[in-house]
């Protein structure tokens, strides 16, 4: 952000909520950059911006659409960038119909589910393009159920192949560029005035500031936070900004980009190595019943060899993940233990889970540094859901509402629930703080930073690493004599991390497994330095392919700490990215 010539902060109070990050905005401003704050509220961010533009809450998509229209209608897009680096020149199928043609809906709308079947939206193909199965275009209802969009978290969607038709003059009406032009034509400054409450003058100032500060010599940066993401249209706002920034050539250049100002120390890490239902590490999908029933179904959906880019090698990431988890039990003749994975049948998000608790389908629940009794939407439903559990484990630094609702929750006060009627067993387990354990956080720009352990946790406090390692050990011991096939994935799991004298695992050894290694002839582990070294023959293992390299050469690069990141402009010797 320090390199930007214009910074648009929309849907964030960055000066107050990310004040230390904001120093780079202040730095850019001191260098002459223009800072514009678009937000319904006048906050401290507005106070230090060049201009505050108030906007009607939730109407951001109209403003962004109008900026796209302004760029397209006035020929202000960056052609040397747009033609080679975006899909603007790619042709879309003849069957695609836009909202103008269909009175507000795109082609493929399914009134039964309220979702789209996007088959007609596909790129037009060369005649010699490889045959693609019908399953390549998943119905929107299914994609929505398994939150498929999350898979684009590292490098965009998987495409079946790269043999698409293009018109680099951008004149063909079926090019993405011409479709955009038609689609966004209705987003006029007058529409912005009427729907967003932004005056024509303010819109002109914004549009001029962005376009005059983009192009060959200059860059504009966007920053957003929950002011975008917590709207039902949040994903569309961000896509709108992405279209705009691509048209202006502001992606992948110093001072450009769209900065997500995320709110938790490792919320990026917990998406990359997901404690999420629909993903495996590195944005590989969790298999869905009916879609990924066999390993070849799964591989076909995740790793088409005909596409370009690094998803073409997804088979190497998949095999290496299974090798990291199931070691020698993952073999070519059992599809690398693919059938050890459980299958999804729809959304299994936290609110679906809470509903399942109320229906007595969930017996046990772990809360790990999260407090849904007051932190999630509909706290009452959360507390009532928990009152249906057989057991609840709450792990936190402090005694939180989610651990004590059975005796002092609002439902106890109103008499709706009575403590003695609640059969839920509750285990409160004190957690270790950030200075009492060693490990990595991934910050908002996907930089991994190692924290050294400063002191031991007090009393019975314990890190999640130690707790889950020990829990896994107990479960495996208790099932050790089982001959039940369903216990094989637990018994074959690689769970042999080196431990200290108290039996706690080394977090550095876990990081080394995440990084990945090659089996040497002597049976040792040689750390890998890049995901391009991963193989499908079972000779490599890696717990999260996008993090391969963090432990290159057996060195913990997340702990690199050259002051200032080293002498180079990239400052790459502080942490690992």
């Amino acid at each position: 952000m320090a390199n930007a010539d214009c910074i648009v902060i929309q849907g964030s109070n960055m000066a107050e909520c990310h004040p230390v990050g904001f120093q780079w905005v202040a730095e850019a401003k001191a260098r002459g950059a223009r800072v514009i704050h678009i937000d319904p509220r006048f906050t401290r961010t507005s106070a230090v911006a060049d201009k505050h533009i108030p906007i009607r809450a939730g109407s951001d998509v109209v403003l962004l659409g109008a900026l796209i229209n302004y760029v397209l209608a006035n020929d202000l897009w960056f052609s040397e960038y747009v033609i080679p680096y975006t899909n603007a020149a790619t042709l879309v199928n003849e069957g695609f119909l836009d909202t103008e043609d269909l009175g507000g809906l795109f082609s493929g709308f399914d009134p039964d589910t309220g979702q789209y079947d996007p088959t007609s939206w596909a790129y037009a193909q060369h005649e010699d393009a490889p045959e693609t199965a019908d399953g390549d275009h998943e119905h929107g209802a299914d994609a929505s159920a398994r939150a498929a969009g999350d898979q684009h978290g590292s490098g965009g969607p998987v495409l079946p192949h790269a043999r698409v038709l293009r018109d680099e003059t951008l004149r063909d009406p079926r090019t993405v560029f011409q479709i955009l032009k038609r689609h966004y034509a209705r987003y006029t400054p007058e529409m912005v005035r009427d729907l967003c409450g932004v005056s024509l003058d303010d819109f002109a100032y914004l549009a001029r500031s962005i376009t005059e500060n983009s192009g060959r010599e200059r860059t504009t940066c966007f920053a957003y936070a929950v002011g975008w993401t917590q709207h039902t249209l949040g994903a569309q706002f961000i896509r709108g900004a992405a279209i705009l920034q691509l048209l202006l050539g502001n992606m992948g250049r110093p001072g450009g980009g769209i900065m997500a100002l995320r709110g938790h120390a490792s919320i990026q890490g917990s998406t990359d190595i997901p404690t999420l239902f629909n993903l495996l590490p590195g944005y590989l999908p969790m298999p869905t019943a009916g879609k990924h029933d066999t390993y070849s179904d799964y591989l076909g959906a995740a790793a088409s060899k005909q596409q370009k880019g690094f998803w073409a090698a997804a088979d190497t990431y998949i095999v290496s993940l299974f090798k990291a988890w199931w070691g020698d039990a993952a073999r070519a003749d059992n599809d690398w233990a693919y059938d050890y994975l459980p299958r999804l049948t729809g959304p299994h998000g936290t609110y679906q889970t809470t509903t399942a608790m109320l229906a007595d389908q969930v017996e046990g629940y772990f809360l790990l540094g999260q407090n849904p009794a007051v932190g999630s939407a509909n706290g009452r439903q959360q507390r009532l859901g928990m009152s249906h559990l057989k057991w609840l484990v709450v792990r936190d630094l402090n005694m939180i509402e989610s651990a004590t609702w059975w005796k002092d929750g609002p439902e106890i006060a109103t008499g709706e629930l009575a403590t003695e009627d609640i059969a839920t067993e509750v285990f409160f387990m004190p957690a270790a703080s950030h200075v009492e354990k060693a490990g990595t956080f991934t910050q908002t720009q996907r930089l991994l930073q190692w924290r050294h352990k400063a002191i031991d946790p007090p009393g019975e406090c314990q890190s999640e690493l130690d707790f889950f390692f020990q829990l896994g050990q107990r479960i495996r011991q208790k099932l050790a004599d089982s001959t039940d096939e369903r216990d094989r994935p637990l018994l074959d799991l690689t769970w042999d991390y080196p431990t200290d004298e108290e039996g706690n695992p080394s977090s550095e050894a876990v990081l080394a497994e995440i990084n990945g290694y090659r089996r040497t002839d002597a049976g040792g582990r040689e750390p890998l330095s890049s995901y391009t070294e991963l193989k499908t023959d079972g000779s490599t293992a890696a717990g999260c392919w996008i993090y391969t390299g963090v432990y290159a050469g057996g060195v913990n690069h997340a702990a690199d700490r050259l002051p200032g990141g080293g002498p180079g402009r990239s400052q790459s010797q502080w942490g690992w990215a």
Partner: protein
Amino acid sequence: MTRWSPLQWPVVRQARSGDVLGRGPAVTSERTRSMKPRTSTADRVVQSVCPYCAVGCGQRVYVKRVEGGEVGREKVVQIEGDPDSPISRGRLCPKGSASEQLVNSPGRQTQVLYRAPHAREWQRLDRDKAIDMVADRFIESRRRGWQQRDAKGRLLRRTMGIAALGGATLDNEENYLIKKLFTAAGAVQIENQARI
């Protein structure tokens, strides 16, 4: 206190110390003179990262040996910004500056507690015993919530009896072990703040 002497007259003190306006050393109290920053009492300094938002500011954790108490016990006495960090350049926001109070909070829980079914109060429970009890319940609920195949005979191989929430405040290594153990157990209902 030493015996009072005319040399301690404020105006004399001001003249003697060169603090003519009486705003410096001439008017400091004994307590002020003996105060030292907590950081100077530390035995060692450890590099860390702020636990709050995702900017990732560098921290320096000042650790001191506790005298007299348990042998080898140490205490965090202060947490400061790390000037070496290219992200934060030594700065911390008010919340990050106060993270010593997160670590040493008087509300911090350090004991495992257990609430039995229908009980009105907590009781103490040994940690080892607690982990063992959780393991038993995990296995039992996993079994009861097991789904081997769906109505169409397709493989599911999962349990719907166990769920988890949390992870955005945890380390990558911790999330990795949680996801690995849950997936191997067939437990799919796992979420964190990233999608709330």
